[in-house]
């Protein structure tokens, strides 16, 4: 890489600003930054209303769920995850409490998930 030597503009002081169209660039630049962020701000302000409008058509809970959401969220009371339905459906109507009865199965499932996750982490290929 060639060594680049600094080159100063020929004009300085107010003349330098005028020749470089400094005022126009500054005002325009500031204006564009404000417009961009004000537009984002307006969009963010409107977003909850827009989402409220489309919620009946595309309920948020309808999407598939993956692990580790960024923020804890209260589950929607109307939404029952399919796995819970499946487990509930397989439980007997009477008998010991499900939590006690399925402890072994739950621990086995968690163990398998942890094992699978760590195996995937170790053997991952780009």
């Amino acid at each position, binding site marked *: 890489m*060639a060594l680049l030597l600094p080159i100063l503009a020929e004009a*300085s002081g107010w003349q330098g600003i005028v020749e470089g*169209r400094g005022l126009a660039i500054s005002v325009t*630049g500031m204006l564009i930054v404000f417009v961009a962020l004000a537009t*984002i701000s*307006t969009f*963010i*302000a409107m*977003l909850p209303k827009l989402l409220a409008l489309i919620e009946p058509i595309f309920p948020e809970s309808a999407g598939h769920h*993956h692990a580790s959401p960024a923020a804890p969220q209260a589950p929607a009371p109307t939404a029952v995850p399919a796995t819970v339905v499946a487990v509930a459906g397989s439980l007997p109507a009477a008998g010991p409490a499900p939590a006690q009865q399925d402890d072994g199965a739950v621990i086995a499932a968690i163990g398998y998930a942890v094992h699978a996750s760590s195996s995937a982490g170790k053997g991952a290929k780009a």
Partner: protein
Amino acid sequence: MDIFKGFLETTAFAQLTFGNGIMILIGLVFIALAIIKDYEPLLLLPIGFGAVVGNIPTDPSMGLSVYDSGSVLSYLYFGVSQGIFPPLIFLGIGAMTDFSTMLSNPKLVLLGAAAQMGIFLTLLGAMWLGFTPEQAGAIGIIGGADGPTAIFLAAKLAPELLGAIAIAAYSYMALVPVIQPPIMKLLTTRQERLIQMKSPRHVSKRERIIFPIAAFLICTFIAPGALVLIGMLFLGNLLKESTVTERLANTARTAMIDIVTILLGFSVGASTKAQNFLTEQSLQIFGLGALSFAIATASGVLFAKFMNLFLTHKINPLIGAAGVSAVPDSARVAQMVGQKEDPHNFLLMHAMAPNVAGVIGSAVAAGVLWSVLTG
């Protein structure tokens, strides 16, 4: 004996100049600041060591420096000179950033815009001192308090000043806790510093997913020059918020950003060869950088006070200072200054909103300057 004499002439002892000595000392000061004072250690340590490496005088025929075509250091520096590293850092930043506080209080985005005033006023100052418009634009971006953006724009507009601009930007970022508080206190009353802000609302996952896509489209349609930086920032954020690419987000915010930070810091440091760096221009750049930072901080605080004239729920003007995009340092400073007045006032969460808006603002400002000054 002749061979030994010849060898002695090639050693650094024989070729060391006073300038090299000064720069090696500056590098060691950076390393000391990073280790002893814990000032931005992730950046100052590689930069400091790079400055030491870059100022070891070598025989020109060996072609070892950043500026020698084909040298190892020149290949590392390629990522800086061609603006490759900054967008990769932005990808990592995006994967780390939580925009929830900003989404919960959209008004605060404007503080991120106001703090960019430092960039454009410093541009005028640089032109006043006789820098070309391109150089002035690259110097002005120091006020964005965003190292990668400053490097990106300097690489595009004024590569000859890249070393000085990068060092100034990162030095002042490390000095945020020193530079900002006096300005914040000077421009606010005690009553204003005591203002407590209401808790932010809950932000849904859907909002957090839509935001990076929408904000990217808004920013790049308005300022296409910001495409690369903004694109990578919001890609990183989408990787994080979608929760379906957790592995990619995790890599972006850990291993990848760390690797790029090492390479960027080291190669920027290595580019500060005394012959290029120890000039009157560098001193002017450092002076303008400090001015830029001060103006950016003041602009944010004053704009928050201006907004309070129209708001029912007042904003604590201290968080205006967080509009400079030194994430999360300036937000921490706002919290620290606020808590000195009232230990029960927690501003950090609120200050993060203008802070992350400042990242977007400085990237847009860089895009605008790049478009305008090369158009």
